[in-house]
């Protein structure tokens, strides 16, 4: 076996090992897209209190929760879901609402694309050079939003789940869960506003 063919077989073994190793967890992130203006608005002042990430796969919970809290508060302010939005501390008015967020699934996974191995070998790498999908990034996120009144009485609890996946090529291999995270937060807020309006918590 000459050196070139030995090299080819080593490459093949590595790719086969990759394809059978399943998937890898991607490091979590916290930033959100700029919010579009909310259609349904609740004329109330709200305070963002706790943002918890209970997903056991998130290693650095404190850092993620802290940053997520800041980004969610900005997102609510930009979207104009409520008359006024701030993060605690602050003086909670009698008619104000307090929001707690909890995320129990917050991890993205990367799987090898089933065609990437045979097509990369078959085309001697041209498949990758021309931007063929080499992996799939999958987000399965879920979260809950708990709304309390100024006396810490729970008014409502809404939940949402988002499943999103997108192809990854050689040219866009940086992981991103921006779309999925933003959709999840947006859905939680929309559901929360609708729920509160339907139950006449306006005043």
């Amino acid at each position, binding site marked *: 076996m000459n050196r070139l063919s030995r090299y080819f077989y080593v490459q093949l073994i590595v790719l086969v090992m990759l394809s059978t190793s399943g998937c890898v967890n991607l490091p*979590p992130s916290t*930033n959100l897209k700029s919010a579009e203006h909310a259609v349904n608005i609740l004329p109330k002042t709200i305070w963002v209190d*706790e943002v918890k990430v209970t997903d056991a796969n998130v290693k*650095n919970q404190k850092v993620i929760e*802290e940053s997520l809290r800041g980004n969610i508060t900005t997102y609510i302010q930009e979207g104009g879901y409520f008359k006024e939005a701030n993060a605690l*501390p602050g003086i909670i008015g009698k008619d104000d609402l307090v929001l707690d967020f909890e995320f129990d699934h917050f991890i993205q996974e990367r799987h090898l694309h089933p065609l990437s191995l045979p097509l990369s070998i078959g085309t001697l790498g041209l498949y990758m050079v021309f931007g063929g999908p080499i992996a799939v990034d999958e987000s399965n996120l879920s979260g809950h939003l708990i709304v309390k009144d100024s006396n810490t009485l729970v008014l409502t609890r809404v939940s949402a789940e988002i499943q999103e996946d997108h192809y990854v090529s050689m040219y866009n291999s940086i*992981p991103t869960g921006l779309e999925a995270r933003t959709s999840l937060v947006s859905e939680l807020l929309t559901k929360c506003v609708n729920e509160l309006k339907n139950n006449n918590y306006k005043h």
Partner: protein
Amino acid sequence: MRILNLLSIILVLLSLTTGCATFREDGRATLSKWPPDAPVNKNTIALQVSGKAIANDEQMDVNEGILEQWRKEVIRAYETSGLFSAVKSGREKSDIYADVKISDKGEPNMFMAFLTGFTMFLIPSKVHECLIINTTYKDQNGKALNSVSKTECVNSWIGLFVFPAMFSNSPGTVPKDVLFDLNRSSILEANSKATFNTVSRGEP
């Protein structure tokens, strides 16, 4: 044969000079005196650090590793200022709350990056990047005490002959130094406006 050997040695030596180095632009934040004079009665401060990255006007993920690095530099600035009796995090009970928002705005040029790689680093490429820190200080009643914004830009070069500059201008350490300085500058500006003295300690 001898020429080929010589050429390959030159190529190897040239490739060894390849590197990536980051340089701070002029107009960096001025630091009048560090640490500043400490007050007799010190307040506690709780920091909430959040961040985002924007490349060519498109948002990108900032993973937990980078967030942690950024947070460490923010905490280091507040701890070494000597102005606070304790530096806490997030929602912990405190006299002052600082909401620190970090934005990393970069303008990478994919075509130039490709050209650099394609020409074996003969043609260098540059990435322009600005770090922006917006800090809002609040008291324990949620009343805004002050708001400070600081920006500094850096340029990262990749190409031949850049390797020696990596020892003093490593892309791993320069942005951390910038972040530390921007936070120190924010603290000094807020302190000069008596932001940290205006808190009534012990009030609900």
